[in-house]
């Protein structure tokens, strides 16, 4: 039996009077590779924030590594949407990655030799060692995303949480990216959240759909009707094509 790392029990969340998430139940296990898909405004970001303890649920219970989220999150490597990063900020690649080690620093918040060894290692893994002194505004979208993943990996996580990771990255880079995640998923659990059904590739083992409520599909195919219900726009989805092809691969 694999170890359970996330448990959401009957979780609901309200922004003021507006119910964003209703009665969510979700269990994630060690080394799972879960894709959560849903339309914009469907509550994806809220769900992530709840898991990370940045928001508190209005109702229900959340456990992260058997602890409340604000304690369990030290095992989580969080990769925010790179499009939300302030590109003008005067910070270089190495400084961004080192900031993943901040909770390990001494009382003067200085990075140790070990922190630097780790940051060198994750830069190596992500293939960005040559960019270390570059200010982040000068990076391409794909490079910046790799920097954010490296920062998350530098925290030595047991779970990697990625928010909209592939928006605007070209197809070849995207394929490489999923191959890389596939490799990584042998060492840690991965949760990937996106509105782009095409971004859920065949490497993703399990899928959940979210639009206020959450439907967990395990390793089964998702009937097209679910997509219709989810996005309220079947034509676009049929036009998309990709989800059907991708999801069928789960049959074998």
């Amino acid at each position, binding site marked *: 039996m694999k170890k359970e790392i996330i448990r959401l029990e009957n979780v609901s969340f309200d*922004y*003021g009077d507006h119910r964003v998430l209703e009665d969510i139940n979700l269990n994630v296990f060690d080394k799972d590779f879960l894709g959560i898909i849903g339309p914009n405004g469907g509550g994806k970001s809220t769900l992530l924030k709840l898991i*990370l*303890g*940045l928001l508190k649920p209005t109702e229900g219970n959340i456990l992260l590594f058997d602890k409340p989220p*604000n304690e369990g*999150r*030290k095992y*989580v490597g*969080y990769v*925010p949407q790179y499009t939300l*990063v*302030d590109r003008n*900020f*005067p*910070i*270089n690649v190495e*400084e*961004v990655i*080192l*900031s*993943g080690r*901040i*909770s390990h*620093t001494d*009382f*003067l*918040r*200085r*990075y140790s030799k070990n922190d630097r060894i780790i940051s060198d290692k994750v830069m190596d893994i992500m293939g960005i060692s040559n960019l270390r002194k570059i*200010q982040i*505004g000068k990076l391409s979208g794909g490079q910046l995303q790799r920097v954010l993943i490296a*920062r998350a990996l530098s*925290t030595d996580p047991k779970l990697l949480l990625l928010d909209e990771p592939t928006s605007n990255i070209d197809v070849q880079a995207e394929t490489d990216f999923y191959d890389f995640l596939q490799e990584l998923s042998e060492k840690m659990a991965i949760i990937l959240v996106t509105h782009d059904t095409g971004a859920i590739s065949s490497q993703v083992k399990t899928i959940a759909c979210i639009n206020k409520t959450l439907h967990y599909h395990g390793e089964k195919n998702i009937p097209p009707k679910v997509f219709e219900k989810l996005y309220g726009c079947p034509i676009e989805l049929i036009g998309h094509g990709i989800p059907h092809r991708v999801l069928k691969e789960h049959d074998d």
Partner: protein
Amino acid sequence: MVFEYAFFQNSLMAGVLAAVACGIIGSYVVVKRLVFISGGISHAAFGGIGLGLFLGFNPLLMAVIFSVFSSSILGIISKKAYQREDTLIGAMWAIGMAFGIFMIYQTPGYVPDLSSYLFGNILTVSRSDILIMFSLNIIIGIIVFTRYNEFLAFSFDEEFSEVTNVPVMKTYIILLSLVALTVVVLVSVVGIILAMALLTLPAATASLFTNTLKKMIAISLIIGVIYMILGIGLSFLLDQPSGATIVLVSGVTYLSLLGIKSLITKS
């Protein structure tokens, strides 16, 4: 020569001390986009000055206490309010200012010229003012030196910092309190209303020349000193108000450099 007069030496010293505080904290104000909330803090500081005058307590010291207190409230409000953060900051801004004016009108007897607090009057800087400014700079320097990496991580990505268990609210309030201290350092040089200019212009100028925060702080410190010396020198030579002259020198220089830089990068 004007340089031999004690008041001129005091003025220059005050200018340099102000430039140090602005160089360090102004860089954070610019990169973390705290300009509006800093405006709120600086205007609310006027409440402290009014209260100090009314109680017969040193107005600058009272402004320290008052503005650190109000910046903590502003910090909490801006994080906890789901919406209309700017409205709440605007309200604090106006209430602090109004409270200061109100208290000053309740003060019996002689009340110093209001405009020297609003627009600064570097000629009236006393030795004790300089001592206060110096001490505040030491506090600012020590805190930023010992928290540098934490402030950097927090300023760059607040959400990620929170996930890595940086005490985000505490860090934010410390940063805003440092803005409050900087505002107090600036009061006698450029005044409450013009403090915003020196919190932003040297750092914004420095950001044209560098890509890392450390260098930005160092460069904006040097640029701040240059602006101060130029501004104070010009105001003495031309017999113009010091605060306004310093701000005009800073503003025109920044905008010119910005224009030159964008022309260069275009071509």
